[in-house]
């Protein structure tokens, strides 16, 4: 955190100082080598220009950081170099020596800064005088060579002193421990290579995991080695990603200077406050956001912050404020630039858009204030009353938005008239490896980046006819009351169309705040994919952002969601604004968005939209009933379904629904709330909510669309109906304790390693008597689950299981068997056994433990292969 103002001495920001030290020492090292080469008779080409650039940077930075001696010395050296560069006069050995000793002196200054945070009392005046003399000599030589000699004689005597001083300081510096011992400089090319290699490794790992799964090798060593490989690869990937991370502060370092210079030019006074400079982001993205951020700062200076007299007249402090803040938020990096300037006037923006011919008068008047603000992102929109040389450069916010979105980010805007403007960039952390949804269309696989994904909708052939509407040639789907434009991927890509009878899969995607539905043939798994750039000849095709190698070795093209929208001719500027307004509200207090639904026998309820992971519609037939619990296969795992009427006074639903709407929540594991109908998403003002004390499952009551609506407490309902889910959250650090009954020593040995690898604390029992003793015993041991062999030699396996279930209703009990006896399975499950698991299927065992909440979900990067779509 730092602050600096253009009026006084800047308080030095450690980050900037460190950077200055690194840069300068590097440059001096470079220059020294060049000078040595030059003295040896083979100067590098462009020596003077190259040195000039380095010294010029040093001068600028030291000036900005108020290291006056360094700046002064660098300045004179720069003048001398400029003279050589411009005149083409080759320096002689005397000049090389002089430059060399100036570099030594500069280095000792920088070394002092490194060790003491200050330049120290190094005398630069003597060296400055000598350099000036050299410069004067050169200028004179151009006219008259005779003047050089006496100048030389005078200055030469002073040199040893300066050098002596430099040596002393350097000696003092070397006594200090060098703080950079813990870091190593690595060539970026090596990092890029590493990144590519880890990409390949991830692919190889994916193939390996898939092979092992398909082969179903019962050898436990293969499986656990494979799992180990999988985990290590994920960790390795994460670590290598980290090596590419750079502090976002690198983008900010130029800002204080920029603001100072602009402030002077425009007679504006501004305090810059920079925060979160150490927030890290992928190297490639640091470059991608540099220009947009600087442009936004220029805009703020130019259009936002007023001149001091205007500010004072409007009751503001004469000195404006500009805050720049970077932070991590939900897997994204947010960069916020806010000023306390004049803000944006929707009325003026509308008028301007009409004047520029971007909108008709009528259309402009129809825009809400919020939508009017979004006008600044339109191409060809520039708000400055007169075009200034600061930001009126023919590029505007539309370019900022394009750049940011191209890098996978989003731009958000907030502005209050006379209060100020805030612009937020939300960027992904990295670009190289991303989670993506794999889909199939026209017989080919494509990957859609998860970051663009909002939800998946499946319509069966009956629904297709009614839910998809044609409006003047464009196709729309009515998604919770909103018209979602549909784009058929197969027709955009000119691939074969699939007959409609098979139903329609809609992938709802978003670019920034625009959304549309991408219709594909099939929806497959999500996978971590490695983005491989396309050859230049394919880059012209706007609908792909790259390609990736899949687990099976095939290649999938990565769909560029923005490109596809452009090709489909979707323009949703008005809609975009409405969406932005909605997103905006989520982040503020005050009115909140709620999902309104009817449940039970028709009572209306609502839950906060912010809590909802997804809204889904599943076939009622796909709901499975196990031991009084309803579950459904959902996105590769089992999702528990809860019915609100079980705890709320709603009456029982009529069982007539073919399609069961679900509201999906994510409590570490997904939980689906079964409802009758999702009515709408509405805004509820907390002031209008009547609190209810008597019902523990409702937070309050309000009236929505004329109907009394219960605001339900999902957390309380889940805690009541499926306590394991909540328990799992609390005990996440504890290893689950599992009791396992198996008579075979070999099986026990095989499982021991496997389960412990999964973080399970397993205790083995060899007889049903031991199990009963353990569970009935007075030791008061807590068990998270029992896995018990059904076919024991003693013949009492089934009886034991039933007894245990009877006595321990809260204990998840699993039957563990080699046999395939459906009747027995049904009987046991009816008597409280959670699941019937084949001894050959260890993955199923883990899955069952996860479903029961015994084992926490595995890491996201672990691959799921046998995934069936919920829809």
């Amino acid at each position: 955190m730092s602050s600096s103002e253009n009026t006084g001495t800047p308080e030095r920001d450690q980050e900037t100082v460190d950077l200055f030290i690194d840069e300068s020492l590097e440059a001096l090292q470079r220059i020294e080598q060049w000078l040595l080469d030059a003295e040896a008779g083979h100067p590098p080409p462009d020596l003077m220009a190259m040195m000039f650039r380095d010294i010029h940077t040093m001068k600028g930075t030291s000036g900005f950081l108020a290291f006056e001696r360094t700046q002064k010395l660098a300045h004179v050296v720069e003048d001398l170099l400029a003279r050589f560069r411009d005149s083409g006069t080759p320096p002689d050995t005397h000049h090389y020596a002089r430059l060399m000793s100036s570099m030594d002196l500069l280095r000792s200054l920088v070394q002092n800064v490194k060790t003491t945070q200050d330049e120290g009392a190094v005398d630069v005046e003597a060296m400055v005088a000598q350099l000036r003399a050299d410069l004067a000599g050169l200028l004179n030589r151009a006219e008259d060579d005779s003047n050089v000699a006496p100048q030389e004689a005078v200055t030469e005597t002073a040199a040893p002193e300066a050098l002596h001083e430099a040596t002393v300081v350097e000696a003092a510096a070397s006594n200090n421990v060098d703080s950079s011992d813990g870091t190593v400089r690595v060539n970026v090319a090596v990092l890029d290579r590493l990144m590519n290699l880890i990409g390949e490794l991830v692919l190889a790992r994916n193939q390996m995991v898939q092979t092992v799964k398909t082969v179903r090798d019962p050898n436990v060593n293969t499986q656990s080695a494979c799992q180990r490989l999988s985990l290590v690869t994920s960790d390795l990937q994460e670590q290598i990603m980290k090596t590419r991370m750079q502090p976002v502060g690198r983008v900010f370092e130029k800002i204080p200077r920029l603001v100072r210079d602009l402030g002077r030019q425009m007679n504006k006074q501004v305090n810059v406050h920079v925060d979160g400079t150490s927030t890290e982001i992928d190297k490639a993205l640091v470059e991608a956001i540099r220009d947009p951020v600087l442009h936004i700062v220029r805009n703020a200076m130019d259009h936002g912050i007023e001149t001091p007299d205007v500010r004072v007249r409007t009751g503001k402090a004469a000195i404006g404020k500009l805050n720049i803040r970077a932070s991590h938020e939900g897997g994204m990096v947010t960069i916020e630039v806010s000023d306390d300037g004049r803000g944006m006037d929707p009325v003026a923006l509308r008028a301007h858009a009409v004047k520029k011919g971007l909108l008709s008068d009528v259309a402009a008047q129809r825009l809400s204030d919020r939508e009017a603000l979004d006008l600044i992102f339109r191409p060809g929109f520039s708000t400055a009353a007169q075009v200034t040389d600061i930001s009126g450069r023919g590029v505007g916010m539309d370019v900022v938005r394009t750049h940011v979105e191209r890098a996978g980010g989003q731009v958000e805007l907030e502005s209050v008239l006379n209060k100020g403007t805030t612009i937020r960039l939300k960027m992904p952390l990295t670009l190289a490896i991303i989670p993506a949804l794999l889909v199939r269309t026209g017989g080919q696989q494509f990957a859609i980046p998860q970051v663009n994904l909002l939800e998946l909708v499946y319509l069966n052939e009956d629904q297709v006819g009614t839910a998809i509407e044609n409006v003047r040639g464009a196709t729309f789907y009515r998604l919770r009351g909103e018209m979602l434009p549909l784009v058929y991927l197969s027709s955009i890509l000119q691939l074969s169309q699939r007959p409609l009878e098979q139903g329609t899969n809609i992938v709802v995607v978003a670019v920034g705040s625009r959304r549309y539905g991408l219709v594909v043939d099939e929806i497959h798994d999500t996978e971590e994919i490695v983005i491989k750039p396309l050859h230049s000849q394919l880059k012209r095709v706007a609908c792909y952002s790259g390609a990736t190698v899949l687990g099976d070795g095939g290649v999938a093209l990565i769909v560029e969601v923005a490109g596809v929208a452009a090709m489909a001719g979707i323009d949703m500027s008005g809609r975009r604004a409405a969406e932005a307004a909605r997103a905006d509200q989520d982040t503020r207090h005050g009115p909140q968005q709620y999902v309104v639904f009817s449940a039970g026998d028709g009572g209306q309820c609502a839950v906060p939209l912010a809590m909802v992971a997804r809204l889904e519609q599943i076939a009622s037939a796909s709901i499975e009933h196990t031991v009084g619990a309803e579950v459904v296969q959902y996105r590769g795992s089992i999702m528990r379904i809860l019915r609100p009427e079980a705890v709320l006074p709603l009456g029982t639903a009529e069982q007539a629904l073919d399609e069961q709407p679900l509201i999906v929540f994510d409590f570490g594991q997904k939980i689906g709330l079964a409802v009758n109908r999702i009515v709408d998403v509405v805004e509820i003002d907390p002031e209008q909510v009547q609190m209810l004390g008597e019902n523990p499952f409702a937070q309050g009551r309000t009236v929505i669309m004329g109907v009394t609506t219960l605001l339900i407490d999902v957390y309380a309902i889940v805690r009541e109906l499926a306590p394991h889910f909540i328990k799992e959250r609390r005990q996440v650090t504890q290893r689950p304790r599992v009791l396992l009954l198996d008579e075979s020593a070999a099986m026990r040995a095989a499982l021991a390693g496997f389960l412990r690898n999964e973080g399970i604390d397993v205790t083995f029992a060899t007889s049903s008597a031991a199990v009963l003793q353990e569970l009935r015993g007075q030791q008061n041991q807590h068990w998270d689950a029992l896995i018990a062999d059904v076919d024991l030699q003693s013949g009492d396996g089934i009886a034991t299981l039933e007894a245990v279930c009877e006595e321990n209703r809260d204990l998840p009990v699993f039957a563990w068997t080699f046999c395939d006896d459906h009747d027995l399975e049904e009987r046991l499950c009816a008597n409280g056994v959670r699941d019937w698991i084949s001894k050959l299927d260890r993955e199923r065992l883990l899955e069952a433990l996860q479903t029961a909440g015994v084992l926490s979900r595995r890491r996201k990067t672990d691959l799921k292969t046998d995934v069936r779509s919920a829809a």
Partner: protein
Amino acid sequence: MNTVNPATLSTSESAMWATFYLNNEMFALRVEDVQEVMMAQPLTPVPLAPQYIVGLLNLRGQIMPAIDLRRRLHFAARNDHQDSNLLVLKTRDGLVSVVVDQIGDVLELPRDDWRAPPETLAAQHRNFVAAVCPIENHVVLRLNVDALSDDDHSLTASISASSLSSTQE
């Protein structure tokens, strides 16, 4: 096919050339530009790509376009139903694979024997032929690898009437 006179070799610089056949013409590439040679591979088609890009090739995790050289060079499609071969080339834009009719020998040709392509070469081919080298009773055409990545600007507009008859579409 190594029929070059040894006397010529000793007196002038020579280089190794990888050759291949396309539409009965012999083409040559510097061996350094060829990473590997292989049989036809499964390719992933790229919808909306230029016609001559027949798909993407996954070569041990590296993804590269496969260019059908016949289409790229405006030759007629093949009709003999024989298996094609793939050459993986190193270009300034990274690896590119090209589909050719058949792989030929590696030849050692003296550098001095190369000459500018004849004026009579059809315009749509001329971009892709960097030089020609006569050997025995036929001519080796040197493929301009970098031209494969160039845009195909208005070639059709300047198709010359006079051209090598064997290379006409």
